[in-house]
């Protein structure tokens, strides 16, 4: 898709570059990737190093973010927490995007009864308070990180399905698709070569926002005690441990709280930036 690529590099980048908020968001996201890759090299302590005789120490040169309720180094745990947050975000959104894309494609491409059934299913899923479904499944199974990611994904694909379907419907009758079909291209080939690349942009936006949502969902589950389980540090469970000491051991809630806040904000700004840059109607 020469059209797609050249468009990306020129128009998209030209627009995106001017959006300073989006650039900042992208920068933070990059930084997080770096942090999680380099975690073992930049943290002075081991994330699980319990020191029962030095619990809840305020920030100091030894412990930049202080220590937690079991004497572990908060800075180290927050940095390692970035790994978990990225993992939760990407895996769950990956699942959601995969399901949503397949169902959206099938629905839009084949239409008819298949479309009706899938779209009614989407409507039904959208009626449930998603957090209730997540809560019920996690509590009945067990708060394992893979279950958490899977269930966030399984309850978050509906938006993607709708987006992809809408895109397919608008592309299906476009000239280049009709031409490909006239040349005898198979359904799969049309889908993969012509439709998917064009549907990718709205999905990308929705995925970026989805990562932010997944990070927040994990922290909410942690607050209820069924998020990522110890000893693995996640921002959600560090923040939850700190909630009992907001006015006294403020460092225990402030740093993971800020980490969540900045990250979610960054993903949102990045997502918005991509959307604006991709939107052909927003020509300057």
């Amino acid at each position, binding site marked *: 898709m020469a059209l797609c690529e050249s468009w990306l590099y020129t128009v998209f980048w030209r627009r995106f570059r001017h959006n300073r908020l989006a650039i900042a968001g992208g920068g933070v996201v990059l930084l997080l990737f770096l942090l999680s890759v380099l975690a073992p090299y930049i943290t002075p302590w081991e994330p699980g190093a319990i020191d029962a005789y030095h619990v809840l120490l305020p920030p100091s040169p030894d412990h930049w973010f202080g220590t937690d309720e079991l004497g572990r180094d908060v800075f180290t745990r927050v940095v390692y927490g970035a790994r978990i947050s990225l993992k939760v975000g990407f895996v769950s959104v990956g699942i959601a995007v995969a399901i949503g894309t397949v169902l959206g494609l099938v629905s839009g491409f084949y239409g008819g009864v298949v479309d009706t059934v899938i779209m009614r299913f989407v409507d039904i899923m959208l*009626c449930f308070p998603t957090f209730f479904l997540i*809560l019920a499944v996690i509590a009945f199974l067990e708060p394992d990180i893979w279950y958490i990611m899977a269930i966030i994904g399984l309850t978050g694909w509906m938006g993607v399905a709708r987006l992809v379907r809408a895109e397919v419907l608008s592309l299906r009758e476009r000239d280049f698709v009709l031409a490909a079909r006239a040349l005898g291209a198979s359904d799969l080939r049309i889908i993969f070569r012509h439709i998917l690349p064009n549907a990718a942009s709205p999905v990308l936006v929705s995925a970026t926002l989805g990562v932010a949502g997944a990070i927040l969902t994990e922290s909410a589950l942690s607050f209820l005690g069924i998020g990522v389980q110890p000893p693995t540090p996640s921002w959600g469970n560090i923040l939850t441990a700190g909630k009992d000491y907001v006015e006294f051991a403020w460092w225990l809630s402030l740093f993971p709280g800020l980490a969540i806040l900045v990250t979610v904000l960054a993903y949102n700004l990045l997502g918005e930036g991509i959307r604006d840059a991709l939107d052909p109607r927003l020509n300057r």
Partner: protein
Amino acid sequence: MTAYLLKRLLAMIPLMLGITLITFVVIRLAPGEPVEAMTALSPKITAETRQRLREFYGLDKPLHVQYVTWLKKVATFDFGRSFAPDHRPVTDKIRERIPVTLSLNIIALILEFGLAIPIGVFAATHRDTLYDKGITVFVFLGFAVPTFWLALLLMYFFGVKLGWLPISGLHSLGSEGLSPLSWFGDLLKHLILPVSVATFGSLAGLSRYMRSTMLEVIRQDYITNARAKGLAERTVIYRHALRNALLPVITLLGFSLPGLIGGSVIFETIFAIPGMGQLFYQGVMARDYPLVMGILVIGAFLTLVGNLLADICYAVADPRIRQGRG
């Protein structure tokens, strides 16, 4: 209009069936059998009683038969008795909790729309200015901050430090003896923090949506025409553009509900508000299957009703739909 309404109502039936089916499947996927959780409460349970209970709950039948039996009861809003030690009917337990959650969420919803729409319009009309950016960051901050953390900070600041607002619950002690007016004032004071937290968290989605619809509308021909005719910018924006941009927002009304109800688990727990979210959380943790199924179905049903109301509003606002195009 009647025909439209009827059509919408009929369309709800398959959705409702789907909701019950998914609820049923999700709960049955859970390891262990509901009756196990129930019989385990009684120390003197014999194999015989267990069997009797299985029959009573129809658990000895094939799954589809069980579903139909359960569905028949659900149709009359009978969700059975809670597995909790109090063994009260699930419907009773939900009924005493629903008004709190619903009214809280409706207040939050009104505030959300009341704030997010002007914010979105303002951002759109001041596109790419510092105001726009500032607003963007502000609304996303609300979305990005973990609810319970913000709640605790506000409780500490306004409740403990300043002593201006009550921290948790719905009523002060001794509020029963107050005059209706001060009783209501007391209730309002208790609602300020939870409602603010809920509203702040939900501003982002709607205001961003409003901003982009507004931008889209402004670009359209009739607006350009209106401008060309020399109408004042204010009139163009508020009389012509806003009205059209508001239409799609109405549909969002119904869909905001599940998110708000879902979020109520967190702020009802932290603010000690006895609503449905708190009840659901307790039910889930105690594996109170009838209660969990009941709340899932009712929660989804509320959303359906919300959507229906939104659609009706939409139909009233947009004559094209009323006249049968939709």
